[in-house]
């Protein structure tokens, strides 16, 4: 389900609109992933605090959203631009790629919460496709 020209335009426009809130939303999404899908906590056992108030979690959520924003600016070559991050996830972090879908769901949920009028079904489908392609690019180096 590759990205059409329309998908890319929609995603870019929506991200531009929501960019002031992306750091906060990233923290929110990660908190929700750890709360609603507790098995994901297994990847963060090196952090002392995995509660919803955790500064570590919120900061990391912001980092992830920053990387997503960066990927959007390079949306025409996700595989190439995510090569280093893919290596990191494949060889060092070894995150099961099924979890990318879980995080994507929580990101989408937070986008809908913060921007209920802008996150229309049409925007939703383009963002969902984008995050799916992002996950694919991130899993590229796994095997």
């Amino acid at each position: 389900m590759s990205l059409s020209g329309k998908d890319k335009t929609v995603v870019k426009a929506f991200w531009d609109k929501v960019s002031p809130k992306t750091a906060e939303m990233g923290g929110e999404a990660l908190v929700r992933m750890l709360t609603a899908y507790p098995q994901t906590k297994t990847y963060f056992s090196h952090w002392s605090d995995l509660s919803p108030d955790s500064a570590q979690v919120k900061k990391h959520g912001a980092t992830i959203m920053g990387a997503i924003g960066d990927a959007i600016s390079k949306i025409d070559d996700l595989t190439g631009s995510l090569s280093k991050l893919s290596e990191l996830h494949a060889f060092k972090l070894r995150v099961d790629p099924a979890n990318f879908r879980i995080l994507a769901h929580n990101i989408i949920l937070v986008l809908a919460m913060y921007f209920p009028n802008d996150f229309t079904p049409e925007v939703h489908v383009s963002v969902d496709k984008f995050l799916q392609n992002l996950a694919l690019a991130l899993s590229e180096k796994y095997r």
Partner: protein
Amino acid sequence: MVEWTDFERATIQEIFSKIDSGVVGPAALSRCLIVYPWTQRYFGSFGNLYNAAAITSNPKVAAHGKVVIGGLEKAVKNMDDIKTTYKDLSVLHSDKLRVDPDNFNLLADCLTIVVASQMGQAFTPDVQAAFQKFLAVVVASLRKQYH
């Protein structure tokens, strides 16, 4: 038997008393049909599903969205035995409607997203976890009679 904490019970009851089923049901179903277009395969008799605008304004989609919420409300009233409550519904989806059960998760996700956008900050991470647990039990009960 599913174990529900007091918080989970109260949360589910509260969500369903707060949401407008006439809005949430249609919004969730139409979002599912738009975001995951292959789900349209089960709605051949619903008429015009050609684009997002058509789906959102389709009266049959809206009516069916309300039916779905009605089904969920049955589960809310029988939280201690959703499996038995849904036995006939499960047989219906398996033998008559022949819905691939993986689709239940897609609709569940859309429901969660629509409820989140309705409730805003009141949809806290703990509330989200409770709601998703409820939907997971619903989905498992709907899958139960497939053979």
